[in-house]
């Protein structure tokens, strides 16, 4: 127990004394997982909506693919990405190996199926009569999508939360494609692995506390928005 309290104390000290290494790791984590979740939204929400609201050949097959993707193990995502971005790989000339963009790509691969899958399930829950109604009022195709996305915005928010939670806490993919390089590609999860390896448990616990605080903070904020329909800015969305 002692060591846990020490870790928590250490976490507080590290945060308030502005330990440079910790802040670097923290910002990189937010930058990587934040942009990954942003790109995953761009990719996942439209795919979820389009697949959910349309009938087309192979629809069931595509849904099955998305659902499989939702359970894609991070190490599998990492391996897929490194096969492409290796120096000898197809995209080797881009020199992405062991860089933050590579980590973003791997995380997008993990998060976008999660976001697409949950969005898909959400729009399928919407009463089909709504679509008929909007169409009969003379809306064009994109207006229909827009209205239905608005209708499904809360589940979509849950999708984003799930996606973010999935990638900020994963270690397998980022350690593979990022290499866990100090000051460059070391994020919270890989730093924790490294600290444990080096026997630096105080620091490891401190970083775990910080990681938990971030995921809690982000999820708390999003939950507030989700539960309080009445917040002005989201209503205007």
């Amino acid at each position: 127990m002692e060591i846990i309290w020490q870790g928590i104390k250490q976490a507080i000290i590290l945060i308030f004394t502005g330990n440079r290494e910790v802040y670097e790791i923290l910002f990189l984590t937010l930058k990587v997982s934040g942009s990954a979740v942003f790109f995953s939204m761009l990719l996942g929400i439209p795919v979820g909506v389009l697949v959910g609201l349309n009938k087309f050949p192979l629809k069931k097959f595509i849904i099955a693919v998305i659902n499989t993707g939702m359970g894609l193990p991070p190490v599998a995502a990492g391996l897929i990405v490194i096969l492409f971005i290796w120096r000898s790989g197809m995209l080797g000339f881009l020199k992405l190996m062991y860089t933050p963009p590579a980590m973003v790509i791997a995380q997008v691969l993990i998060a976008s199926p999660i976001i697409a899958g949950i969005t898909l399930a959400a729009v399928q829950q919407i009463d089909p009569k709504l679509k008929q109604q909007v169409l009969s009022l003379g809306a064009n195709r994109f207006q229909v999508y827009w209205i239905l996305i608005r209708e499904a915005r809360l589940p979509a928010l849950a999708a984003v939360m799930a996606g973010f939670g999935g990638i900020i806490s994963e270690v397998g993919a980022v350690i593979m494609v990022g290499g866990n390089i100090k000051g460059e590609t070391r994020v919270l999860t890989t730093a924790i692995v490294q600290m444990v390896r080096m026997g630096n448990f105080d620091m490891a616990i401190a970083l775990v506390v910080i990681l938990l605080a971030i995921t809690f903070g982000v999820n708390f904020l999003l939950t507030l928005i989700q539960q309080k329909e009445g917040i002005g800015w989201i209503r205007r969305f």
Partner: protein
Amino acid sequence: MSKFRFLKIFLFFMLSVIIITTSVFAFSCKKKVKNTEIILATTTSTYDSGLLDELIPVFEEETTYKVKPIAVGTGEAIAMGERGEADVILVHSREEEDRFVEEGYGTERRDVMHNDFVIIGPEDDHSDISGLTAVEAYITISANEASFVSRGDDSGTNKKEIEIWEETGTTPQGDWYIESGQGMGETLRIADEKQAYTMTDRGTYLAQQNNLSLVVLVEGDEILFNPYRVIPVNPEKHKDININYEGAQAFVEFITGEKGQAIIKEFGVAEYGQPLFYPDVIK
């Protein structure tokens, strides 16, 4: 509403997202295209001990290069060199290094530093291996079926362990022989939790000593010598890949040069009362 209109929109959308993201990344990476990056594939023992964190900043300050150390086992580091995924490797497995250079993957091998392996175990040393030679100790452990944790990860330490088992003429197997498949740090902790015997490089053991109850039981045997060497990857083997050979050579010169060797010599002395690695070029 035709079915295929949807598919068209869908494909168009996917394509545009892919094009936009790749071009954004390609663009953001353009700045770094000048070949100043050196990928150093090395072992967990040099990395987890913290030695590279001391060496690399000094090297980067002296030159314009940027080093990316990737900590893997010796086996994987050599494989990375063979595929051209690394520019220079710092490893500890003589036989593999010789093969690597003889097959033309590396251009030269240079001695950098050494330390030694030690066999550690629970304080009560229930199998009584203290003071034996490494081979005798392994024979005793296997005869008693005392728990022994192996790295089992094709690392330099693992290769050395297998070499010793081969000397004993027995093949370790059974419930007592645990393969962790992880780095030295994790393996030490597993051995500690299970109060098992294991073999480790002295550097990692010293760095972790505060967290461990295991003690050194066998040391000083010739077979336990643990030399590290640095090898630049041969750019001729990978003409289609841009190997940073100049950078690799600069790193080799640095780590075997006066400054690098002095850092190695001093490393760990203040904290552990003895160096974790002994430089080979200076005494």
